[in-house]
């Protein structure tokens, strides 16, 4: 990378006068997909994605041109195209920006790891996935067993004619196991997922074996379970469902580019209005939500966003009140509201937009026993399996893999096909219990889709289990 870095800075110096400001973001990402199914190799694919996004400020408008041709001629062609398109578009720009939206910064980030991913052998990875696959082999009723790992090494370097020089290096892993049990027309799948900024230390055969066997047993257990009952009951969501609830009903509606209408034609608008900040009682007083790209091992931690804005932890919702949105320096300028460092692009071939990073629900004080003891009639739900929400982020419906029916503060039985639905602000105001720090788990997704042209980005979400009162719950075939 160092050779390219020298050339890139040289290139910028050479063409400095071509535009009011020029940025160059080099992204080199190596992703290996390793999949074992039924104890056999299913997929072994490694992708190298390396290119450069040239960004120019011309007549108050930022425009972009991406290329994988990293020769001087290739970069010059990309620069010329960026200037040509941006000059034409500036006459019809949404807003007149300045180089203040691209602060001059210098710095580095290296994700935490005990062992570099490129020092972790293919044999070691295959062996650990094989262990997981075999760990799920507990019954002939388990018809499908999959153990997979997505192994990601990313280097993002950002330079500008304004003097910015940022280098960020990430090792990330997403491990997934899935066990599917079938009997007659019934089919139930349990999954396990661990993802985040980890190195090769994540390939722990003993832990893999334990989790693999657990989910296989639970898939079998679900075959014999009754359908989740239908009605208004209390709902205790575990962290592997809370992450999705946070993502869809807090993260997306708080994105300021949605509030500004940029996203209306694709993912949608938002029920949140600019005047809601500082006023809207988004949830109960137990609700505290942060934007926190500083969390060790969480999937979307970083030191700078793709505009060079230094990333810091900020409260989005404090004691239930909406206080801050997810808006980059550009959105902050357009809306005249405070935001966060969240201008992120999926790769070198896309322009940055307002994204989530790590959006976390801060822990409360309750133990798990205390949360369950508050339930007179209710359902515990674990692990997301279905998700849908409207384009304003109001009406949602989520389904989980595994449910437990609770009566008078005691778990009575396992139930299958648990689902619930609600409306965002009403739902969060029904929050009556938040687990303590010992119960916090970190989850996330490698596949958050948004933007035009479309972009997939990684997000992290930490949360303890949370208890909600009188939620509309139902099972399968309702």
């Amino acid at each position, binding site marked *: 990378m160092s050779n390219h870095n020298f050339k890139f800075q040289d290139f910028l110096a050479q063409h400095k006068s071509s535009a009011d400001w020029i940025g160059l973001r080099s992204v080199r990402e190596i992703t290996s997909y390793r999949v074992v199914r039924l104890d056999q190799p299913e997929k072994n694919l490694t992708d190298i994605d390396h290119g450069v996004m040239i960004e120019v400020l011309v007549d108050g408008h930022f425009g972009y041109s991406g290329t994988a041709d990293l020769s001087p001629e290739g970069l010059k062609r990309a620069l010329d195209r960026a200037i040509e398109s941006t000059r034409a578009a500036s006459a019809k720009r949404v807003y007149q920006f300045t180089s203040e939206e691209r602060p001059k910064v210098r710095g580095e980030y290296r994700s935490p790891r005990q062992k570099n991913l490129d020092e972790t052998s293919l044999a070691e990875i295959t062996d650990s996935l094989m262990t997981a696959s075999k760990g799920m082999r507990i019954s002939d009723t388990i018809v499908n067993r999959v153990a997979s790992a997505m192994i990601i090494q990313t280097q993002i370097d950002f330079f500008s004619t304004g003097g910015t020089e940022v280098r960020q290096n990430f090792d990330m892993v997403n491990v997934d196991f899935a066990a599917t049990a079938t009997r007659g027309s019934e089919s139930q799948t349990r999954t396990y997922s661990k993802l985040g900024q980890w190195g090769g230390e994540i390939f722990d055969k003993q832990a893999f074996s334990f989790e693999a066997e657990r989910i296989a047993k639970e898939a079998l257990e679900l075959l014999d379970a009754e359908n989740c009952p239908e009605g208004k009951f209390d709902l205790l969501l575990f962290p592997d469902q809370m992450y999705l609830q946070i993502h869809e009903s807090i993260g997306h509606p708080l994105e300021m580019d949605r509030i500004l209408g940029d996203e209306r034609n694709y993912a949608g608008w938002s029920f949140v209005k600019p005047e809601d900040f500082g006023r809207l009682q988004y949830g109960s007083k137990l609700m505290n939500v942060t934007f926190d790209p500083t969390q060790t091992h969480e999937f979307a931690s970083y030191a700078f966003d793709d505009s060079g804005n230094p990333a810091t932890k900020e409260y989005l919702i404090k004691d239930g009140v909406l206080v801050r949105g997810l808006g980059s320096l550009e959105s902050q300028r357009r809306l005249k509201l405070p935001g966060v460092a969240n201008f992120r692009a999926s790769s070198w071939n896309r322009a940055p937009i307002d994204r989530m990073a790590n959006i976390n629900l801060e822990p409360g004080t309750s133990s798990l026993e205390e949360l369950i003891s508050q339930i007179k009639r209710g359902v515990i739900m674990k692990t997301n399996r279905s998700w849908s929400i409207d384009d304003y982020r*109001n009406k949602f419906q989520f389904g989980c893999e595994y449910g437990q029916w609770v009566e008078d503060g005691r778990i009575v039985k396992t139930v299958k096909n648990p689902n619930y*639905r609600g409306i965002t602000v009403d739902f969060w105001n029904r929050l009556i219990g938040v687990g303590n720090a010992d119960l916090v788990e970190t989850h996330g997704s490698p596949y958050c889709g948004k933007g*035009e042209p479309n972009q997939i980005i990684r997000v992290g979400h930490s949360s303890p289990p949370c208890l909600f009162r009188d939620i509309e719950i139902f099972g*399968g075939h309702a």
Partner: protein
Amino acid sequence: MTQSRTSEFSQNLRRYFQTASEALFKELEPGEELTLNLTAEEQLYIRFNGNLVRQNTNVEQINLTLSFHGNGRTVAHSTTVGGRFEQDLPLLSRLLKTCREEARVLPPDPHQVPFQNNGESLNEFRGELPPIEKLLDSITGPASGLDLAGLFAGGAIIRANRNSHGQDHWFATETFFLDYSLYDGPRAAKGVYAGSTWNHADWAANLNRTREQLELLKRPQQNVKPGRYRTYLAPGAAAELLGILSWGGFSAAAWKQGLCPFRKLAEGEAKLSPMLTLKENFTLGLCPRFNSIGEVAPESMTIIENGEFKEFLVSSKTAKEYGLKANAAESYEASRSPEILPGSLDESKILKEIGTGLYLSNLHYLNWSDRVGARVTGMTRYACFWVENGEIVGPIKDLRFDESMYEALGPKLIGLTTKAEIEPSVSTYGLRDVGGVRVPGMLIDDFTFTL
């Protein structure tokens, strides 16, 4: 972007791909075989908000995937390349060596299907776009005074495939789409203008039709409560439904692995409406017939005929594992060019056919809510109306539906319209997609809305 630049990109890349692949095939050792897959685009993307430009992005990208068989092992490596042969060859040679090294470490692949020469094909479709200044004037001029949001994408898209047995497929197309919506406060109407040659008058006419729908949205909003209603899904909404059905619905692997929502249909325990026939139809010309290992799908293949299941999409790998007959499906076994055949409902009289109920132009964020029961949930979106006695009363507030496809496409299906519309893919994840669907409108009785 101009026409000449795009054609040059395509022509240069064809020569590059031939040279690069031949060089790599020469490096193969005995017992090894290699398939090379190329995806590339030269695109201009322009994002609009308020009929103004939010972001413009030019992208030129080329990706090569090496699928390697050696010693009974299967390994793949892909990489972006700059498109300059001399500079890229060392990287590609290194990847081939890495494939060979990984094959020494991995266990054998019991489901490996040997590559073969599936023939040659050459399909090139030229298009024409004005320079960006004129394009922007042409887009925003007729929309002056309108709150337009959306995305223009236009330029060259290439898919190609060669293997060490002599197979050679090339598909290059120059097309565009303008996927947009018009707003009156929170109310919105949706439109897509797509083609290969930009025509200002056609765009203005397309915009006008969407503007007329926006006018209907200015009628008083109707508060429709959750319940069951006679519901018309216009082709845009029906296309969304077809999209979710393709997600595991017709996959042989999903069926064998306990994940297929249409297991009962496939095994003859259930039927859909006799009005429903679903095909994989490559004569639509929206995407190449060859898949990523170069197998050429039949021009047309029936998945569901008159409500009865006929055939799964079966990849060669699935076929080998489960002893089935392959039909050149992609490895993920989703339909690439699906079509639902039209019916007998006259779309010009669709409001009369609805009588009292809902007209839905679009749906949003669909997902399986219960795969075993083939139940799907999702939201209404854009121009959706309450209809009474064959007349539009006014737009509705968004509604959530949750309905079994065995019901909605079974006894509840009243009819399909006589005209099926092509809905081109506007997906641009990573790179611009090819393909699309052709669907008629669907009239469904007692469609279930829950929130």
